[in-house]
């Protein structure tokens, strides 16, 4: 009965997902995925991974068996075996023909089909493995991804340098092999050809009066890096969204909040209220824009730059904000930061030139869309393949940053601990502190009653202690003029001081509670009127797509962004080699030249001139203050003295 109602709820609010053109992986049926995989274990040290269950023999039940090994061992699934050279060449040829801008769609389709047929004829003589990977479905030439404006041109030198370092680090770290995405795409296409269906796993959790609907989507592969210039690739990609419902007194179910998982973020920023204009809905179905390759979920269509918050720079960013505020408001000076929207200033946010393309111009799945959802798996009571299998759901690359390792299942982190989104879906989205709409009034009244009770206690305590205090005061007054009772007098004085402080604290608490009771009354009235306050008050820093104006980057700027970091390094080496005696001056000249070129391309020459001049003015001001400090101190003292005299005389003369 419960299962039926869970299914109804899940289907009633199931989301609509808009993908980006060029997306190759969509939510896959769990059974098909597992049955296509083999199970491996990697033991500690240099031991090669061992295959425990080969392809075609793995099932969900088999996966749920207790797999035991040493504590350092890692169990993992492997979805697609590497391609042979011929398979990879055919795939690449198909892809390049599909992307060709110089052929019409029909011509490209014909060419792709021809290549595919040729490969299939060749692969008939191959092994069973090769036949399994045969290219049965040519990619649709009209469904091809184009990156658009240069992503490197959207960020500064520092970010480009960090990006270059990251790319280099891939050479040293473990990573998914280059052909893994192609192999996974072919395997997934074969599964779709046999049975095209799109399925999610649905979970219904009841917590603190909330009904939480969790939609878990499994993608066979995350090809963000190899397919869309992103951060990483990995086999298996679990994504999730939550919808938070409350139950009205008349048994109606009302949606109140949604939270979309986006990479590894958690907290208030993930959450949107159901009436938030940013949240698109089709009927009762919230709309998700999935990042191309990464499958991260976004509320708005667009292209998102990866942001990295550097916590240790936050105090410095706050100080800078304060100084800028003083610069603008007290000195009445112009500042570019003052024109930027709130939350976008501060250098504790570091942009990396990785773009999550969530354009929503590709396939759509969901109610009234190109494709619809198949009946979901209900995992409210976690089946054993979720609760028992703690290994990874795709290939284990032994990446030092774990970024290229496959994730574990919906219930677990990679290290085997339980995910917060699983055991505390409210806390994961910062909703654990918020009651449902229908509980809110009751909660306010409860708090009001508790505080009223406390006020009564406080009144009694203040009365008693005030009585004690006046008694002590009288005792002290009585013994004050008696030298032989000096010690008693001093002791009473000490007691009076302690008691007076205590009473002062109680009175302060009483006054504060009084203000809180008024606030509770006001809040209760607002709730009774159905007012819910601002929909976005909880959001500290929301992901926003790159503005349209910044997407239009000139070809010259793109080229400059692509070569600038390399050119800087070459120029520095050149200076070291040809003019080592003037290395420092050469370094300054190169950096200055590159900054000027970059500013010119970005049409920020005025900003550069202004900022540099203001910085020089500040340095010069510090120099002058240091040089003339005694004189300045004397002038300040004279001015202060004159001002005080003038104020006092003005008062004297009326």
């Amino acid at each position: 009965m419960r299962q039926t109602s869970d299914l109804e709820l899940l289907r009633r609010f199931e989301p609509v997902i808009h993908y980006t053109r060029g997306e190759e992986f969509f939510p896959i049926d769990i059974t098909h995925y597992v049955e296509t995989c083999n199970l491996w274990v990697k033991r500690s040290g240099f031991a090669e991974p061992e295959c425990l269950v080969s392809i075609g023999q793995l099932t969900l039940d088999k996966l749920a068996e207790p797999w035991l090994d040493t504590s350092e061992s890692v169990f993992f699934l492997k979805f697609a075996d590497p391609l042979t050279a011929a398979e990879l060449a055919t795939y690449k040829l198909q892809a390049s023909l599909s992307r060709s801008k110089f052929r019409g769609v029909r011509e490209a389709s014909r060419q792709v089909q021809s290549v595919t047929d040729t490969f299939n004829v060749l692969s008939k003589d191959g092994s069973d493995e090769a036949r399994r990977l045969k290219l049965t479905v040519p990619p649709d030439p009209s469904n091809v991804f184009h990156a658009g404006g240069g992503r490197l041109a959207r960020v500064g030198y520092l970010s480009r340098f960090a990006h270059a370092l990251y790319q280099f680090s891939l050479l040293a770290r473990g990573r998914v092999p280059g052909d893994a995405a192609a192999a996974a795409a072919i395997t997934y296409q074969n599964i779709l050809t046999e049975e095209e269906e799109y399925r999610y796993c649905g979970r219904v959790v009841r917590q603190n009066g909330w009904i939480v609907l969790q939609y878990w989507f499994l993608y066979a592969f995350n090809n963000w890096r190899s397919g869309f210039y992103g951060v990483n690739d990995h086999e298996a990609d679990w994504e999730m969204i939550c919808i938070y419902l409350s139950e009205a007194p008349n048994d109606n179910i009302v949606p109140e909040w949604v939270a979309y998982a986006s990479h590894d973020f958690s907290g208030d920023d993930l959450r949107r209220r159901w009436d938030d204009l940013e949240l698109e809905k089709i009927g009762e179905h919230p709309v998700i824009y999935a990042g191309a390759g990464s499958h991260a979920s976004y509320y708005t269509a667009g292209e998102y730059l990866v942001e990295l918050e550097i916590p240790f720079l936050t105090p410095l960013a706050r100080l800078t904000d304060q100084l800028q505020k003083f610069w603008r408001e007290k000195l009445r000076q112009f500042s570019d930061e003052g024109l930027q929207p709130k939350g976008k200033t501060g250098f504790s946010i570091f942009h990396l030139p990785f773009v999550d393309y969530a354009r929503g111009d590709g396939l759509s799945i969901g109610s009234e869309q190109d494709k619809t959802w198949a009946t979901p798996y209900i995992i409210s009571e976690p089946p054993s393949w979720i609760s028992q299998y703690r290994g990874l759901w795709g290939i284990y690359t032994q990446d030092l940053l774990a970024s290229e390792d496959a994730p574990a299942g919906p219930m677990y982190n990679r290290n085997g601990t339980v995910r917060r989104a699983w055991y505390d879906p409210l806390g994961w989205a910062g909703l654990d502190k918020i009651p449902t709409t229908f509980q809110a009034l009751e909660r306010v009244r409860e708090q009001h009653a508790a505080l009223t009770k406390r006020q009564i206690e406080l009144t009694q305590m203040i009365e008693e202690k005030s009585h004690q205090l006046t008694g002590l005061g009288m005792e002290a007054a009585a013994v004050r003029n008696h030298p032989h009772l000096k010690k008693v007098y001093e002791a009473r004085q000490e007691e009076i001081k302690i008691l007076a402080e205590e009473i002062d604290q109680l009175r302060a608490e009483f006054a504060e509670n009084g203000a809180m009771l008024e606030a509770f009354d006001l809040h209760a009235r607002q709730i009774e009127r159905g007012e819910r306050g601002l929909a976005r008050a909880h959001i500290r820093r929301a992901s926003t797509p790159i503005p349209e104006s910044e997407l239009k980057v000139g070809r010259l700027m793109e080229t400059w962004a692509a070569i600038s970091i390399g050119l800087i390094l070459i120029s520095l080496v050149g200076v070291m080699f040809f003019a080592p005696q003037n290395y420092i001056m050469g370094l300054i000249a190169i950096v200055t030249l590159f900054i000027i070129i970059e500013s010119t391309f970005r049409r920020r020459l005025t900003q550069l001139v202004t900022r540099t001049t203001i910085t020089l003015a500040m340095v010069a001001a510090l120099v002058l203050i240091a040089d003339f400090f005694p004189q300045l101190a004397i002038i300040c003292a004279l001015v202060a003295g004159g001002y005080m005299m003038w104020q006092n005389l003005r008062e004297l003369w009326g």
Partner: protein
Amino acid sequence: MQRFSVRISGGLLLILQAGLLHIIWPRQAVPLEIYLVFNILSVLAVLAAIGFFFLLHTGWLSGMLTQGLSLLVSLIIYTMGREILLAQLTMLYSIFMVLYLNSFNIRGAFRTGLNHPDAPEENP
């Protein structure tokens, strides 16, 4: 501040700066390269003043550029320990000019639609 007063006050201040740079860095007292640099800067200041009279953005930019270069050269001369008093005087005037040129009223006159949120309403 009315646009007319921006043209006049800004222009006059820049012309004054051009004169000052020319006067306080005489050929006899300083090396040739310093003399040349400050003379070029005084020409730039005159050009900036003309731009100010016509309320051209390039006039404002030239004015700011004059201050930046003037400050840079003065700081270099100062760190070299030469003509310290003259460098200090030049820096002081340039600091004042930077604060003037970057104030909301002045920048607002060169950019339409830019006003300080707390700035008093301007009479037409």
